[in-house]
Every structure is written in C-alpha cells, then in structure tokens.
C-alpha cells in the first residue's frame, strides 16, 4: 500500500461528494400558488414586528373565519428580521406576507423575493394611499408593496428642562448648536442629544432634510451622489458638535439611551412620529415633561422635514393564496378600525389618505404635557422630499456609513470622510451586484 493510492482514492471520494453537493444545490423549484375554493378555510402567515399589529390581526381573524392570518413576531428588520426573510426565501419557507420597509424593497426585488401585485388588480386601490408612499413599491409596470406608514420627523424635547434652564426650543440648526452649548453649561451631566454612529438611517434622513438626493436612475443605470455639499454640511455640523463635546456618541434606541432619557441626561431627540411610542414605553417616569416641535431648519423661515423609516406590507414569493393575502394587506392598511389599532401601538404615520383627522392620532397626549403632537407631524408630512429613491444595496450602504462614523468617533478621520468613503464603497457594492452605475 502506498501513500499515493490512498491520496488518489481520497480525491476521487471528495470529487464525488462535491458533485453530489452541486447537484443537490441545483434544483430550485417554484412554489405553487393556489386558488381558494369558496367555503375553504385557509391560513396565511404574516411576519411583522410592528407593535399593535397583533390586535389588528385578531380583529381580521374574528371577521374572516375562512381566511385566518397567523402572525409571527420577528425581530425588527435591520436587527435580523430581513436576514430571516431572505433566508426563508432561499429555503422556500417564506411566509405569505411580511413587513418590508421602504428602503429595502429594491433589495427584495433584486433577490426576486416579492410578488407583483399589479396582475392581482392592486391598481384599483392606488387612490386610497398617499402618492409618494405608493410610489415606494411601484417599479416599471409592477407594484410590489401595499404602503403602511411613514415616519415624518420632528423634534421631541424635554419642555420642563428647557424652561428650567431658560432656553428656547431651537427652530434652526444654528440655534440647536447654541442650545447644546447652554445645556452643557446648565447641567454638566446633560447633553442635547447623541449622535448615534451606528444608526446611519437617521443621518440619511437628516441629509435628505438638508436637500441631498443620493440616488437616481437614468435608463438602466444607477446614479450615486452621496457626497454632495448638502450632505457634507450635515456631516460637518455633527462632527463639530461631537468634537466640541456638545453631543454624546452613544448608540440610540438601546438600554443605555433609555436610561439617559429617563434621567434627563439626553434632552432632545430629532426623531420620527413612531418615536412617541418608544419614549412612552421606555421612559415612563418622564411622562408629562415632553413636547414636540418642528425639526430645526438650515435656513430660517424654511419648512423642510424628512422621513425616517416607513414600512409596507408585501407578499413574499411563494405566497400560497395571493388574492386573499392582498385583500388582507389592503384591509390592514386602509380599514379605519385597523388603522386605529396600529396607531395605538405606535406604527407610524398612516399611508392611507386622510387617516389623520378624526383618528386616534388626532388627540392630546398626556405624556407630551397635553400637546396634540400629531399636528406637528401632519405639518411635517407635507414638507418631505417625496422624490427620494432607494438603491438595492441600502443595507450595505448604511453599514458603509456606519463604519466611517465609528472610525471617526474612535479618532480616525472625520464624518465627511465617512460620507466620501461610503460613496466609493456603495458604487462598488452596486457594481458587484451586477448592476450598472455611474458616479455623480
């Protein structure tokens, strides 16, 4: 027996196994769609993380005994929810319906993960929704999502502390910076805000508010313009605030941040409408001390807001009863009772037209010292740049920005460098997906 013969046998065996693997991995099959017989009882599965959606689903189930919806709660999209959906799509185990935020719809399209709703007649309902939100799911001749809610932005602030310190709530970003300085003097433990270096979705919205438009399509080619003067100005503004020690650089939306909000160590949050539920849930001790004002402006007298977040209900590829699933998605997002239940959970700003006045949104909030805060958000909703587009690599784009911000906070480079590096990296990401790109 020689070593050589052993080795040869081993190689032959390995080749056999590898070719088995290749065969095993070749067979993608299209899942079947079915038609429901009248009177047939079916169950649709629905993945979502939106608080309050369970109550809406219960309502639907009590009214539709034949078409039951089984809600499965998943982690929020960027915290593992989308990873789960992509992986379920690959294994052919995807649910019929899922929560898909506007910024990732193109990502799901690129993986061929969404059902085109146009052949199912979704076009008849276009008029029920706010136009720009409808457009988030419309590509070419297809419509791939039923819009649910958006996140118009404003400024949450601790009215009691601002009053105690004699500081007026800022209306421009210049005033915001001055207020930040005075807060540091008034209370050495307090900061006006944090700049979360790991949450570039928030930064993206602030850049949009300043007038940046990062992505566009001409023909078949993507146009990427992240490092525009508007974006650089926003980046440099927060970089200066950071270097002057006027803001924290801790992450937002996690327990240290909640502890800071509870204790009055962070006194404003430039956030979206869905943030009200987060404040009420995580800083219950501060009830009655908050108010909401419009987002600060770059030029005095302007009224520009931005959108942060925003979500749709989509049918994932493989949905077994697409007609019934679509019917549920439309009901969930237009039925007034359903909308009221979603609002109570804090899902955001309704995408259905005219859902504000008279709804559960149109009321004073005790938590916000009796203010009708949604009047501010209704105004903000009118002042959003509605032509913003998302690329099919948004998740990676966010991470590209985060990397630069983190590096800057750790002492390497500036926020503006981060934007420039993200521009280059994002172009490369799109190209690596096999798409055509031109740099602005």
């Amino acid at each position, binding site marked *: 027996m020689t070593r050589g013969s*052993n080795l040869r046998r081993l190689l032959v065996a390995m080749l056999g196994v590898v070719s088995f693997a290749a065969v095993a991995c070749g067979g993608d099959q299209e899942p079947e769609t079915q038609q429901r017989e009248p009177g047939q009882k079916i169950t649709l599965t629905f993945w979502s993380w939106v608080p309050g959606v369970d109550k809406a689903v219960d309502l639907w189930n009590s009214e539709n005994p034949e078409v039951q919806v089984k809600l499965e*709660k998943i982690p929020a999209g960027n915290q593992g929810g989308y990873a789960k959906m992509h992986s379920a799509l690959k294994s052919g185990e995807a649910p019929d319906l899922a929560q898909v935020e506007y910024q990732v719809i193109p990502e799901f399209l690129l993986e061929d993960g969404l059902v085109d709703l146009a052949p199912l007649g979704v076009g008849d309902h276009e008029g029920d929704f706010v136009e720009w939100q409808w457009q988030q799911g419309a590509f070419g001749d297809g419509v791939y999502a039923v819009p649910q809610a958006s996140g118009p932005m404003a400024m949450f602030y601790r009215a009691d502390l601002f009053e105690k310190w004699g500081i007026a709530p800022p209306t421009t970003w210049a005033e915001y910076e001055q207020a930040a300085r005075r807060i540091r003097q008034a209370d050495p433990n307090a900061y006006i805000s944090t700049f979360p270096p790991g949450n570039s979705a928030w930064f993206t919205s602030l850049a949009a508010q300043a007038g940046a438009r990062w992505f566009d399509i001409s023909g078949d080619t993507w146009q990427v313009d992240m490092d525009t003067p508007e974006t650089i100005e926003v980046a440099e503004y927060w970089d200066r605030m950071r270097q002057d020690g006027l803001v924290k650089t801790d992450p937002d939306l996690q327990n240290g941040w909640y502890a800071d909000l509870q204790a009055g160590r962070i006194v404003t949050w430039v956030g979206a409408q869905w943030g009200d539920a987060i404040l009420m849930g995580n800083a219950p*001790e501060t009830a009655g001390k908050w108010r909401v004002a419009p987002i600060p402006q770059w030029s005095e007298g302007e009224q520009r807001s931005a959108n942060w977040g925003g979500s749709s209900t989509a049918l994932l590829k493989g949905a077994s009863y697409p007609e019934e699933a679509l019917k549920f998605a439309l009901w969930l997002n237009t039925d007034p009772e359903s909308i009221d239940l979603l609002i109570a959970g804090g899902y955001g700003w309704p995408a259905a037209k005219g859902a504000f006045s008279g709804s559960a949104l149109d009321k004073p909030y005790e938590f916000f010292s009796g203010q009708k805060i949604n009047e501010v958000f209704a105004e903000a909703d009118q002042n959003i740049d509605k032509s913003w587009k998302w690329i099919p690599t948004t998740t990676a784009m966010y991470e590209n920005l985060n990397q630069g911000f983190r590096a800057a906070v750790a002492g390497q480079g500036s926020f503006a460098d981060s934007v420039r590096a993200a521009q280059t990296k994002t172009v490369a990401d799109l190209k690596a997906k096999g798409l055509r790109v031109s740099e602005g």
Partner: protein
Amino acid sequence: MRASLRSRILVTALLGVLALYFLLPVYWLLVASTKSTGDLFGSSGLWFADFRLAENLVNVFTYDDGIYLRWVANSVLYAFVGATVSTLLSAAAGYALAKFAFRGRETVFNLVLGGVLVPATALALPLYLMLSNVGLANSYWAVLLPSLVNPFGVYLLRIYTEAAVPDDLLEAGRIDGAGEARIFFSVVLRVLTPGLVTVFLFQFVGIWNNYFLPLVMLSDPALYPITLGLTSWQSFADRQPELYQLTIGGAFVSVVPLMIVTAVLQRFWRAGLTEGSVKG
C-alpha cells in the same frame, strides 16, 4: 504533605476572590430577575428593589402562549438526541480505528483530525445553502444532522479504546462465536462507559450552547432552542420594553438547571478518572 497555615489562607483567599468574579454575573442575574422593567434601569443592580420574581416568572412562561417552554423542550431535544447519536457513532468509528488494521486507516484518522481543526461556523453557511436546496433548512433536521458529527469525539474515543479495551477481551468474544456487532454492543460499549459519558457531556453542552448553527438554519420560532429564543426577545425589546425583563427572567430560568447539571456533571467527571493520591 501539609501546607503551612499562611499559604493555606493565601491560596484560599485568592480562590475566594476568583469565585466572586465567576459568581458576580449570576448574582446580578438573580437580583435582576426579581425586578420590574422600571427598576431594572432605575435601581441599583446589586440589591433587590420591589420583589416581583413570581410575577416575572409567570410572564416568562406564559408570554406568546408559552413559547419559552417549547424552546426549552427544543434545546433538550437537540442536545440529548444529538449527543446520544453522535457519541454512538464516534464510539463505533473510534473502535474501528483503534482495534482493526486495514487499508486507509491512517487516511481516515488524519481526515478526522483535520475535521477537528475546521471552525464549525465556517461550515454552517454552505451547509445552510445545501440543506435548503434539499428542503431541510428550517427543520429539526437542520440543527440535528450537523450535531451528529463530532470528529473530536472520534479522536478521544479512539485513544480511550486503545487504552481501555484489551485485545484479549475481543478475542475471547470471537472464540465464543459472538458476532462483531454483538461484541461491540455488549462488550466494548460497557468497557468504554466512562469515556462515552465524557464525550456525551462535551457534545451535549456544545449543542446546548450553540447559537450560530440554529441562527443560520432556523426561521420558525417554534423550532428555536433557548439561545435563539432569548436573543429574539432581546431584539424586540426596544419596541416592547417588558421584553427586557422577560429576557432576563428567561436567562435566569435556563441557567438554574444548568447549575444543577454542572454539579452532577462534576461527579461523573470524577468517576471516570483514576483517583490520584493527592488530596482533592
């Protein structure tokens, strides 16, 4: 040998300090599991506030129709079935490698040794894609199958068999006319018992603690083990703050039986050892 009093005090004090380090997080967990969400963020972590352990535990077990108990059952299933089968397979393979001379023996053994050195997480991604193409991803099999292969167990049991199973015993069985299978199941396995227990425990804890494999393989919460279930609760917690408390309560409940198990495991461990004359 008698040690001086000074060195006894010194060594024992040092061990005491180290014990504090190892116990501190467990103590914190115990205290935290008795608190409300508000107290969790608003009171000292080292002492009890409003005592609500019972209420918290009820929440852990009833939330989402008692999904937590299902996760416990899944963890037990994965770890117990996986460790049992993999120990048997390893024993058979280790026995073959230790007690038979055949062509290709060293090749197989070297391949197995190489397998010990490959990080399991590097295998999980391609394995996921392969299993999803044969329709096995997101099923009990997706976590169980990879847990059945334990190259390190083969390595340990080969060495253990060489040392513990005398050739005469096998020959005696053969002369009595027993078949090879019977010799293995009724003679070899009995002699190997202490080694089998060790390999079983290694693999059991390995599967119990595994996170990456189920994270990659599973999307249905009904199939989750505890590790995945608790992190999923934690990831919802920013929108549903009460889940912080559930995560902590769930962690507490899962750690307590493990403390008991490790105590039992210690006894087994010692049973399998040659008792030295050093006082222990």
